[in-house]
């Protein structure tokens, strides 16, 4: 049975309309509702389903970030993860933390914890990078199954259905592997109140990148963060004929 590591990120809630800071250094995050990255919820759900099918023995939920990241670890524990690891990174170091740094942390933890399977979301909805699974796999020299919409345990590895541009693709990977969850992999469960209470008793270990021997030196410099160009508000047209008129004006129809 596999020992599974799931990566969970605390991000600004997907329904929040974000605001760029007036000094153009970033996006305002203080006092704003945060929650678990939606793709990571799917990753946790998949791990929990594997445990329910007796394919996984233990699920370790890891989050890299400031103290509040423990909230998303608690959520993962309430969904069914067994224990948590909080890798403490905050302030300016966190602002410039890249998926490469997180991948190095996950790879190191995977080795220390003798993990056989890592599942993460395909991308975080804040930085929209879509890199962590791929880079963690590279660092461990494990196969990668990205954008998974179906994961099956077959033989000595996995058979994975992936979402690609033209449709779907099936690949086989050996185990151990790193997989990334796409939206259609599953529907995450809600944590029930009794499970939320139980999750409070589950252990969360706190470590730092330094403890793990991971260098988090900045790889990028933020030049500026700006609002996207604002589209000019258009007009509401009275009927289909007016719309056809506008399409003709724009040269879209003859």
């Amino acid at each position, binding site marked *: 049975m596999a020992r599974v590591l799931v990566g969970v990120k605390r991000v*600004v809630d*997907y*329904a929040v*309309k974000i605001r*760029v800071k007036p000094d153009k250094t970033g996006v305002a995050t203080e006092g704003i509702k945060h929650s678990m990255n939606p*793709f990571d919820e799917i990753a946790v759900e998949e791990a929990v389903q594997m445990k329910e099918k007796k394919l996984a023995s233990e699920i370790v939920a890891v989050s890299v970030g400031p103290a509040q990241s423990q909230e998303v670890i608690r959520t993962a524990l309430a969904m069914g993860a067994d224990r948590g690891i909080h890798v403490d990174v905050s302030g300016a170091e966190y602002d410039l933390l890249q*998926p*490469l740094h997180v991948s190095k942390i996950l790879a190191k933890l995977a080795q220390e914890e003798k993990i056989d399977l890592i599942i993460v979301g395909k*991308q975080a*909805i804040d930085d*929209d990078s*879509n*890199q*962590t699974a*791929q*880079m*963690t*796999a*590279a*660092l461990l020299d494990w*196969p*990668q199954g*990205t*954008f998974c*919409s179906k994961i099956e345990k077959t033989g000595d590895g996995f058979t994975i259905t*992936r979402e*690609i*541009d*033209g*449709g*779907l*693709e*099936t*690949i*086989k*990977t050996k185990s151990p592997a790193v997989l990334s969850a796409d939206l*259609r992999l599953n529907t995450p469960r809600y944590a029930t109140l009794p499970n939320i209470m139980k999750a409070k008793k589950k252990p969360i270990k706190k470590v730092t990148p330094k403890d793990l021997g991971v260098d988090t030196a900045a*790889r*990028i*410099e*933020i*030049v500026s*963060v*700006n*609002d*996207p160009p604002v*589209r000019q508000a*258009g007009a*509401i*047209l009275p*009927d*289909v*004929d007016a*719309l*056809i008129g*506008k*399409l003709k004006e*724009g040269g*879209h*129809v003859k």
Partner: protein
Amino acid sequence: MFSQAPKPLSRVFSQLHRFQSTLVIAEHNNNTLTPITRNAITAAKAIGGDVSVLVAGKKCGAISEALSKVEGVTKVLVAEKDAFNGLTPESLTPLVVALQNQFKYSHIVAGASAFGKNVIPRIAAKLDVSPISEVTEVKSADTFVRTIYAGNAVLTLKAKDPIKILTIRGTNFEAAKDGGSAAIEQCPDGDYNTNLSEFVSQELTKSDRPELTSAKVIISGGRGLKSGDNFKLLYDLADKFGAAVGASRAAVDAGYVPNDLQIGQTGKIVAPDLYIAVGISGAIQHLAGMKDSKTIVAINKDPEAPIFQVADHGLVADLFKAVPELTEKL
């Protein structure tokens, strides 16, 4: 004396500029080149310096011929091997790392398609470089623009790593045209077989319509369509424009259409000349995928739908009446 200072400085800069050399990783299906590769070549040209293109695969002949004629390409490197069946990142990464060690590129670039997103970060990690995803603009050889938070903020960043590894957003760069004559060379030989992963099969959605990410006109449907059968209304309208048909996540999740039609933060990013959103409310995640379209038309019965805030032309109407009427009158 001081007035002369800028001159030598700019000369130094232009020399540095000349030393840029970019490797573009071509995406193809053994028969045809995926169009986003041409957009990636344009981004590579914007960086400056030489542009080499790597064609790896089971069959590379036609693709490398086609690429050698693309304007701005200096060299086409070919690696034709069964090991590259299905273009798995586990087989391609050691090849690109070997090329990097030999040719010392300053930049490695691919289109931000499912292929590019899958392979580029693996290469970057092997080279200990922090990659930059979905670049929308090249400011200079080390300064790039990309969007974050589902397109609601624009980040300009300077990459500090010695090698810059990027995926580029296809809709933000023109497709490179034909008009070049590059040399075709074989990649140095190597064993790229991997037992880590194996390509099994692909099930591609069959369609006579233009490919979604390069279509000039897109008609897109959402939850308001109410069923998969009703998408026929959109296909009929699309025929009038020679348009591609897309969908919101709600329509995909409801099973109306396959997921590869999904437009948005988690689906495809499109920027056609004309985008007609039918029965789509306009959630942040959907807007992330289409708000760079030149003209946006929204047809929705809810006047409060957020889609009307980005639409150039809005029609508050029942789509089941308005769409057939539009199709008929065009």
